[in-house]
């Protein structure tokens, strides 16, 4: 059987004085899907990075098929048949999908016969559950598509052990089902073993055979999925003393108020010179969460970027409280606009700067944090420490570079910056990508609390469940336009799915259901 057995023996890893992994002994049986759970910052990524040789463990050993094996670098791991899909994207942004796939194979011939390669890639793609345009560049792809490309890159290598670090956090539940179903099939047929990090219990119970839980660098439980339950796992993740927070209900206290954000005829250019947003009209009232549903790549990314000022607008008007809004700094401040971008490290942070610097980005130029053109770093650092405490950001101090934080903790740091203080308009994209369930509940709670305080929230998410749970009104975006809208309480999943899938193209005219 080609599938590999993986064991780690008392693996430890320290970052300075901080212990990220403490004597972890994990056992992945060949031909199974093994799920790895844990809070943000528990050390899951660190563990798998030690296995593939991205980090060097300080103590302990890795056993492949029962034999102790030194894996000094990811290249060695690849040679052994171990593939890894990292939590952060590793595709080359400026090269096409085909070029990225070719690169992943490692050996690139001196002269590339593109016709043969393309035919081969097309054939390969047909055996997988995803379809991607071979000529698209990752720069232009939505997160979900990039994630698919990452997985494709690894599948192309026919790995005998596939490690995936939160592969589904950027996929819709339907996509996740496809991907995980395909992986489980491969595993059970003995082609490869799968070690998968996730935050979603649903995926664990539906697709994994075994499950292990890490807490603060320690392996706290490990066993068959059949013997566990989400409650037990949650308890193991959080520790004995702490109880998981309950999600606040979606109940809306007051009816939405007056229209606050008004978008008319918005047109935005995509990365390839095509029109990605084509005449979009939308209104958001105060005290309302409007959820934007859609299959990724239908202009949501460009739409949000244009709203927050990261992308120029071709045409159309955006008004906030009746005044034109261009997302300038002064406007953001006076109209109290905040935003949570997707992939916060890429879109909302400066990776090389410290946590405190990044937390300061909104207010470093205004009193009381600035005086006569000078930044008062000490005050900002004190506030950063308070936020780190309040939002539970796991970091080695406010002076640590933000890109050394775990994925979920970067998200929390951004959250602290954007959600503290009162906002009148929140522009949110996929806010819970890669967060553990406690953090998800917390963020959802904060969004709802903001809504109840009268804030308008525009929420773009690829996760329909999230939209149904949070939104007051759901609109469907397809082909760069809003094609359907409905109050969330009347929304039906299959109907939304049909509109997302492009039903408007077959229907005579976009119809709208009365509220």
């Amino acid at each position, binding site marked *: 059987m080609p599938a590999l057995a993986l064991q780690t023996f008392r693996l430890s890893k320290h970052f300075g004085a901080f212990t990220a992994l403490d004597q972890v002994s994990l056992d992945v049986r060949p031909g199974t899907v093994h799920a790895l759970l844990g809070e943000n910052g528990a050390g899951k990524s660190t563990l798998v990075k030690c296995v593939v040789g991205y980090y060097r463990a300080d103590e302990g050993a890795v056993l492949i098929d029962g034999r102790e094996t030194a894996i000094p670098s990811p290249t060695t791991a690849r040679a052994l048949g171990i593939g890894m899909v990292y939590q952060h994207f590793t595709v080359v942004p400026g090269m096409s999908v085909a070029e990225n796939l070719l690169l992943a194979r490692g050996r690139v011939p001196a002269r590339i016969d593109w016709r043969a390669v393309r035919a081969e890639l097309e054939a390969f793609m047909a055996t997988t559950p995803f379809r991607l345009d071979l000529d698209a560049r990752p720069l232009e792809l939505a997160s979900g598509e990039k994630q698919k490309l990452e997985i494709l890159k690894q599948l192309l290598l026919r790995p005998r052990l596939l490690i995936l670090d939160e592969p589904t956090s950027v996929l819709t539940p339907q996509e996740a089902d496809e991907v995980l179903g395909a992986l489980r099939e491969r595993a059970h047929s003995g082609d490869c073993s799968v070690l998968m990090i996730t935050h979603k219990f649903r995926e664990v119970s539906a697709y994994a055979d075994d499950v292990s839980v890490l807490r603060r660098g320690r392996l706290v439980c490990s066993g068959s999925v059949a013997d566990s339950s989400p409650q037990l796992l949650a308890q193991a993740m959080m520790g004995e003393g702490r109880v998981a927070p309950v999600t606040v209900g979606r109940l809306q206290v007051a009816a939405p108020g007056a229209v606050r954000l008004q978008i008319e005829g918005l047109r935005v250019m995509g990365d390839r010179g095509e029109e990605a947003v084509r005449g979009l009209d939308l209104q958001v009232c105060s005290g309302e969460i409007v959820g934007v549903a859609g299959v990724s790549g239908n202009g949501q990314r460009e739409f949000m970027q244009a709203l*927050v000022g*990261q992308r120029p607008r071709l045409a159309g008007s955006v008004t906030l409280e009746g005044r034109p809004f261009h997302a300038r700094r002064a406007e953001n401040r006076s109209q109290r606009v905040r935003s949570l971008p997707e992939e916060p490290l890429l879109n909302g942070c*400066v990776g090389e*700067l410290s946590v405190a610097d990044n937390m300061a980005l*909104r207010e470093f*130029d205004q009193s009381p944090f600035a005086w006569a*053109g000078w*930044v008062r770093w000490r005050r900002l650092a004190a506030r950063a420490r308070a936020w780190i405490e309040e939002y539970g950001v796991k970091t080695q101090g406010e002076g640590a570079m933000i890109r050394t934080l775990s994925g979920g903790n970067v998200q929390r740091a951004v959250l602290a910056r954007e959600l503290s203080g009162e906002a009148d308009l929140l522009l949110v994209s996929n806010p819970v990508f890669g967060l553990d369930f406690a953090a998800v509940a917390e963020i959802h709670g904060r969004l709802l609390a903001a809504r109840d305080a009268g804030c308008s929230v525009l929420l773009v998410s690829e996760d329909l469940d999230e939209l149904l749970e949070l939104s007051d009104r759901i609109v469907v975006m397809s082909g760069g336009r809003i094609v359907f809208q409905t109050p969330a309480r009347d929304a039906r999943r299959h109907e939304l799915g049909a509109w997302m899938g492009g039903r408007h193209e077959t229907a005579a005219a976009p119809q709208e259901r009365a509220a």
Partner: protein
Amino acid sequence: MAGSRNWQPTAEAFALPLLSLAGALVLFGIFVALGGRDPVAVWRLLFVGAFGDAFSWQNTLQRSAPLMLTALCVALPARAGLVIIGGEGALVLGGLAMAGLPYLFTPPAGWIGTLLLLAGAAAAGACWIALAGWLRVWRGVNETISSLLLAYIAIAVFKQLVEGPLRDPASLNKPSTLPLAESLRIGSIGSYDVHWGLVWGICLCVAAAFWLGFSVHGFATRVAGGNPRAARLMGLPTGRLVVTACALGGACAGLAGGIEVAAVHTNANAALIAGFGYTGILVSFVARHQPLAVIPVAILFGGFGAAGSLLQRRLGLPDAAVQVLLGFAFVLILASESLRGRLFTLPAPLRRRTSIAAVAGAR
């Protein structure tokens, strides 16, 4: 809190440039040995010529003054995310403004006049580099290429004017402008043979460090340079910040030209085009675009320049031999970036890889 995470980046910041410089010296030794000279004598002369005695120190400091300013012309735009290599152009335009402005009006005598002319020199340099930044931000032209091409244009303009309309009829075989009035020149510091330009250079490096580290505008510039997307999300005027950083850098290089004219050449002539702008690129990269680090690095490279003439006199090496050393240094500095973050972990994987081979062989 202490530990590998905190000391490693700092140690690397020092170790990488030092190792690259050592490597460059070794390669330079091999190079001169191939030419039949004794490398040990060359290394010794390099040191003696740069820092051996009071005379060489004065020579070294004299040369390091413009290097500090031209290095800032690379460092400041770099912190805003742009790679500007056209400091030479800003420098010659600054020199031209210094010598040329008195043709247009009679500046008041004394230090007020000098300051006025220096302001003109700085403005000339600022405009030139800001143009490269502007082309980048609003027209999408690669700033590295455009700044280099703009430097060639600046040099051509300089020569055209100095050899044409501004030429002093008395300058026969070395076309120059009219000399600057005695009272407008920049003198030496006390009894040393080092002019006040050194103080300008050091003060501006310190000021730049303060600006970047502690001012609202400087921090905004670093954000725009570190991640333009995040800067736009924050509503920062990224384009304006970038162009301003370019203008500030260009002003420093323009000032360097003005000071060279007022303190060394006393008029504008082709000797001003001595490559300070290009060596400044090297200085800034070695200093990792940190204004405070620019000061010692500029002194080191000023020393190499000073040693060049000694190599020529004692060993008969051509004056340009030092350029070879600088070339080696530049290539190694750029290459050393690929080791950043891995310098201290590097030996271990190498060791392990051999042990795998040993195990495989044993089996």
